[in-house]
């Protein structure tokens, strides 16, 4: 069960340039392995509250975020000659309450980890947006794919500030595609019950 010849290690990853066009995003399918190159904006819990407030006040996304990608992440300080010592995704579902409004307002892609709500899946399909999952816990590795970081807004939020990062072949998976296909659901059906009964707890 579940063995497939597609996927990482078996096919070259798809190169995605950011900010991505709707057309480029529409070509991606849930499960695709991608490498992302271009700008993304970090946004966590408090940042989302600020973005929603500004969106409600002005009716549009602040800080030039229309057409851009949000990365649910808060980096460690610069280290080892890199703009961030470690930088990986945080849990996406905490942002779910804000995501449909942000996608409607013009965010075209998000990067995080973990499953998302049905509302977010539907908002991806309705707006032609894509949700990418990066590997949580691989932050030292992922930071080697970040070439630049600059403060954009909310520096007082510390790790939660809105920062612009420049990615270079940043590895991720298409978790929800622009048609609303959800990789987390697919793999749950594919792999449930597939593990050996004796487990692996040596």
């Amino acid at each position, binding site marked *: 069960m*579940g*063995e*497939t010849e597609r*996927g*990482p*290690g078996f096919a070259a990853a798809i190169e995605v340039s950011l900010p991505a066009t709707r057309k480029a995003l529409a070509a991606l399918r849930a*499960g695709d*392995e991608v490498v992302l190159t271009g700008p993304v904006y970090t946004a966590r819990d408090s940042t989302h509250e600020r973005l929603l407030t500004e969106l409600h006040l002005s009716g549009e996304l602040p800080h030039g975020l229309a057409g851009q990608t949000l990365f649910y*992440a*808060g*980096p*460690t*300080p*610069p*280290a*080892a000659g*890199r703009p*961030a*010592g*470690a*930088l*990986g995704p*945080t*849990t996406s579902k905490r942002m779910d309450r804000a995501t449909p409004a942000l996608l409607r307002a013009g965010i075209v892609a998000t990067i995080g*980890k*973990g*499953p998302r709500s049905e509302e977010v899946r539907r908002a991806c399909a309705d707006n032609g947006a894509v949700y990418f*999952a990066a*590997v*949580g*816990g*691989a*932050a*030292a*590795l*992922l*930071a*080697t794919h970040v070439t630049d970081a600059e403060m954009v807004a909310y520096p*007082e*939020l*510390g*790790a*939660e500030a809105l920062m612009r990062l420049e990615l270079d072949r940043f*590895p991720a*998976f298409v*978790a929800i595609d622009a048609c609303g296909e959800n990789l*987390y659901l697919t*793999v*749950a059906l594919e*792999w*449930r*019950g*597939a*593990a*050996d*009964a004796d*487990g*692996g*707890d*040596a």
Partner: protein
Amino acid sequence: MVAAEAIGSAVYDAIVLAATTLRPDALKAMRTAIERERSPRGRAILVQLLENATIAADDRVPLCQDTGSVWVLLEVGEHECVCGDVPAAVDRAVAAAYADALLRTSIARDALVDRSNTGDNTPAFIDVTFRPGSGVTVTVMLKGGGSDNASAVRMLAPGDGEAGVIRFVVETVARTGASACPPLLIGVGVGATFDKVGGLAKKALLRKIGSRHPDSGVAALERRLSAEIDALGIGPGGLGGTVTALAVHVLTAPCHIASLPVAVNVGCSAVRSASVEVV
């Protein structure tokens, strides 16, 4: 006599080590996991996690950007005298370690009334217990928010028994595991009181992966939980596969005749802890 400053110094060393170095037992378990993972995507993710550990150790950068809240467990020898303001010394060590090792500060001043960042990752969360002998064993765990959020406590009825414990643990991981950075280390506490059972589950994460529980019944429960959690299919990175847990560790304790407290503390793939002996 052990001075508070000596404990602080041990906390500093343990934080820097834990933040940048994957526990040897976790590293070994991750390598074994690649052999038993049947999903190609899952294996690729495990390879990424092993590469990550190498980069972190070589470049002395954090394994994960969430360098956690700091839990400090002080096991004080019964013949030892500890002098000075231990919480203050520990917090000075936390602030210094987070600044020097370039770790992220992730502590809100108050959960409800003021969520501003304290800016130095203080305060630490400290537990003190006693053990035979002299000296102080200082253990530090850096706990990521995502995996701690995936944790849960439930007060079961005694009649729910072991079956109830299994159901609660497996349901908790099924509900939250994919977001908690699998492959996971699952700590389970059974017993004590409402406030203590979470601590038991957390302590269970400190046990060496691959070690057996001394009680054969509890060891069998661990194997069964491990098998049921792997059968969920969550897999590495939550993107499907046959390895969801590196191990399940259970700690049991006495409890009230009316109670069966259970706690699940989920540890992520970058489970980070280190111990230093202060003599």
